[in-house]
């Protein structure tokens, strides 16, 4: 999923809290809900249209205690990669969701003269965390520590 583009069939809402920021996502299925939540996180950090897909990173995670834990782990893995490797991302693609997640992130090295960081995101939290199947597809809610 190219995070710089709008995608049909998805709903995204940013939640305002006094100190932190949250997101709510509705997507047609579990895989795309993970991608949409990942994109929401990336767009919190940076204008993803300013990022070029020059490097690819593979994510392999799992097993998880439950779906909430899956979302928590997935988003925190993105935060870890961005910080540890000093990269910014534009695209998220989840290729497998079962007891494990296999996904790819694409982006480039952070360049302060090219990329403007909108928000420092420290972590995804368990607070008010929801990742569940609903009538319309899958619903995710995450509060980030910023």
């Amino acid at each position, binding site marked *: 999923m190219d995070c710089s583009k709008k995608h049909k069939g998805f709903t995204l809402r940013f939640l305002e809290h006094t100190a932190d920021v949250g997101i709510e996502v509705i997507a047609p299925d579990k895989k795309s809900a993970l991608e949409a939540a990942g994109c929401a996180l990336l767009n919190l950090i940076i204008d993803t249209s300013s990022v070029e897909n020059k490097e690819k990173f593979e994510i392999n995670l799992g097993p998880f*205690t439950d779906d909430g834990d899956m979302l928590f782990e997935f988003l925190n893995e993105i935060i870890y990669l961005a910080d*540890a490797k000093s990269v910014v991302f534009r695209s998220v693609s989840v290729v497998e969701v079962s007891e494990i997640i296999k996904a790819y992130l694409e982006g480039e090295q952070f360049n302060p003269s090219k990329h403007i960081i909108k928000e420092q995101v420290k972590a995804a939290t368990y607070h008010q965390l929801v990742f569940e199947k609903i009538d319309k597809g899958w619903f995710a809610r995450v509060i980030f520590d910023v």
Partner: protein
Amino acid sequence: MLGGKLRKISDVEYVLEKSYKEGMQVNGVIFADSELLEQAIKDKAIEQVANVAFLPGIVKASIAMPDIHWGYGFPIGGVAATDPEQGGVISPGGVGFDISCGVRVMRTDLYLREVERHIDRLVDALAVNIPKGVGSTGKIKTKRKELEEICVKGARWAVEKGFGWKEDLDYIEERGTFPNADPSKVSSKAFERGSDQPGTLGAGNHFLEVQVVEKVFDEKVAEVFGLFEGQLVIMVHSGSRGFGHQICTDYLRVMDAAVRKYGFKLPDRQLACAPVESKEGKDYFAAMACAVNYALCNREILGHWVRFSLEQALKMPAERMGVSLIFDVSHNIAKFEKHNVDGKIKVLCVHRKGATRAFGPGREDLPEKYRKVGQPVIIPGDMGSASYILVGTKEGEEKAFASTCHGAGRVMSRAEAKRKIRGSELKSSLEARGIRVVSGSMSLLAEEAPEAYKDVNRVVDVCEKAGLSKKVAKLRPLAVVKG
């Protein structure tokens, strides 16, 4: 109010009865005046005070400071002490992601009037010498072995490498080295994130300020702290950076599993915890201690760049300018401390999340110089108004496990601040008031606008009226350096 369960004790103290929610083990105690209380209720932070009261082994009360605001799990401005002998727990959420986020103030012998013409040069030097911003990497690249040394030695590592003075260590909480750190309890991911961040300010609400002592409230204590009106001082606010964030993230998962293992019933998953004496609890404490040491080392290195910048700008050795550390104290931490519980002295695990330790006079833990008057407490305000130096009290030890506020406390969400305030306009308006601003990001600057915070003067006044701490000096910002 709150179903009639909130009882007014005084103009600055309220009790939330434990019958407010089934499962609360103790009452909530909120130190606030009517206006700050109203903000906290509106913000739903009081619900979080109630939720913290569910923690197994919590003693006395779930306590909120006047700068309380909504957090995730714990409120920001929350204090909770648990008794390890009674199955008391330790919770990473009660410390926060930015483990040992804290502040230090460095004094000088200089009057502002003597050096005013050099302030721009000083700010320019700080802007160059202080690594700052999101993902900022420092001038110090550390290999795994050195990071492990930092984990164990804390600020002492920095001093041994020449980034700081030996005498600084006496004026850092725990003499610069937090005990019981075990790097084997820290993940490779955390080490990876921490490898090039020692000696970096970071972003968000972290900052460095050049300030002047505007007013001294207590001459006797100010003299002991080395403070006088018109004096140039520097304040540094930073933490354990990505290293600490990753440790918190890693152990939240461990604690999430522990909650199920020990059969705890908690109203919020982010309150995940384990008994202090369990393997999970001990492992977290040992890893958290590494992050505390990382933060203490980080601020010591930043202090070194402050001295270096002062020397560059004023062309004088730091020793001749009397650049020394008043104190360095964390406001996101869990510590074992002795406190009086129902007439008995007990060792408790005290969580302070957005709250500052404020020991009164006589505590052996304090440097000898401060033992007679109490611990210096450093309160960073917002960048447009003021910061404070307070001193801890005996009364605060009894009422709030020796804790007081940690800042002004947010009142406006980051998004709202960005909508209402433009970073560039804010910079211009602060500069028109004589406050120079150096910021890597105008967007992040807008989030930290003075309007986004409560009135710090009101917050410290409530702390004083409640007996938690006393005002010693008020500091006015001259220049702000932010990520």
